[in-house]
């Protein structure tokens, strides 16, 4: 690819990259937070709420992300939910990721030895403190590999946002390739870029895991 092409499209691609990273980070944080709330509500909430959340998890996990985005972005205005592409994409990512994170947290809670919770109750620690100081820290350590793994999956899902015209990297790359007719090169570079991104994040994730679980290794 000629240098002038990069000079011309460089800023556009850079902006796209920024939006990709923003969507990924914000989407991961928001869906993780929502997932945690769902998992906690399932554990401590009333039974009807549990069933409702179970249904939510099954529905979201059973339908493609693309269709969820279409419902939200094109169907939303019919019920008064009129969003721009970027907020719709972020909301979509949050909704899409939350059930997976909820399941990860749920299995993390399951891995916490029950005796620890009972012991905390026995010495009279109030329930909110048990959650904050005993349940969550222990669950987070055992859930970390799965959390990292799903965050990596979310980086790849961000490209689907390009279909509802969120101006992220894939969208900008497609725009560039239709204007320069360099479809193959553009997509090849995009593939290499994502490959590098995912490899980097998973390396960092593994290092984080090793750091957080080192007391277990030694123990």
């Amino acid at each position: 690819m000629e240098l002038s092409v990069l000079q011309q499209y460089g800023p556009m691609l850079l902006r796209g990259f920024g939006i990709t990273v923003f969507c990924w980070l914000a989407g991961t944080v928001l869906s993780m937070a929502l997932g945690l709330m769902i998992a906690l509500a399932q554990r401590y909430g009333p039974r009807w709420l549990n069933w409702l959340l179970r249904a939510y998890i099954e529905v979201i996990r059973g339908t493609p992300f693309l269709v969820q985005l279409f419902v939200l972005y094109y169907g939303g205005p019919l019920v008064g939910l009129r969003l721009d592409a970027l907020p719709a994409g972020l909301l979509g990512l949050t909704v899409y990721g939350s059930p997976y994170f909820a399941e990860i947290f749920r299995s993390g809670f399951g891995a916490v030895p029950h005796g620890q919770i009972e012991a905390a109750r026995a010495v009279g620690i109030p329930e909110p403190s048990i959650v904050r100081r005993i349940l969550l820290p222990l669950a987070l350590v055992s859930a970390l590999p799965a959390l990292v793994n799903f965050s990596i999956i979310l980086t790849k899902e961000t490209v689907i946002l390009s279909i509802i015209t969120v101006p992220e990297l894939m969208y900008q790359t497609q725009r560039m390739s239709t204007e320069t007719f360099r479809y193959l090169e553009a997509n090849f570079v995009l593939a290499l870029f994502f490959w590098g991104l995912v490899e980097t994040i998973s390396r960092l994730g593994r290092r984080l895991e090793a750091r957080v679980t080192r007391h277990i290794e030694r123990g």
Partner: protein
Amino acid sequence: MFSIQTFLDAFVPLAWAARYTLLVSCLGIALGLVIGVVVCAMRLSGSRLARGIGALWVSFLRGVPLLVQLLLMFYLLPVIGIDVPPLVAAVVTVGICASAYISEIWRGAIGALPGGQTEAAQAIGMGPATIWRRIILPQAVVMSLPALVNELILLVKASSLVSVVGILELTRASQAQAATTFRPLEVYLAAACIYLAINLCLAALGRWLEHRMAI
């Protein structure tokens, strides 16, 4: 407001289009199973080159979004002079992508097999090919069935992306339907219901397989 009539009317044409969703995901997983065996064998082989290529294959296909892979394939094929219908190209791409995940599933299943079995087979004089065909694969395939059903569910959802390259499957058909009826909410919700129905059936199949294996 939400129109129940439009919602219900959308089901028949969409369910009919869903046969391509099933076709792409079933052929995709079939192709993925075949390539997956080869990749898995490469990753477990003694040759360092084969192991390297296998690892690169898995890492690339798991690191690149399927949408990018699809577009890459569609622009690559004409350049290298291969002229196939879009449906074939889509199935091949989905299959190649699935092969990376399936080879990892099988690597896990094979790792869980007791090592003594291979040694016993070697001791009675079986060659590597025979050991794979008669000892390792039959057990690994049975053991990995629930995970493979899970992979099929992922593929049914991933197949919605082939709508981008013009395959008239469930998602593409609902886009067309939404455009003609001007009722995107009802139509896309109907599409979501069909996807959900397919995947709930598959999930039930997976649970049944898991239950049978546990006994």
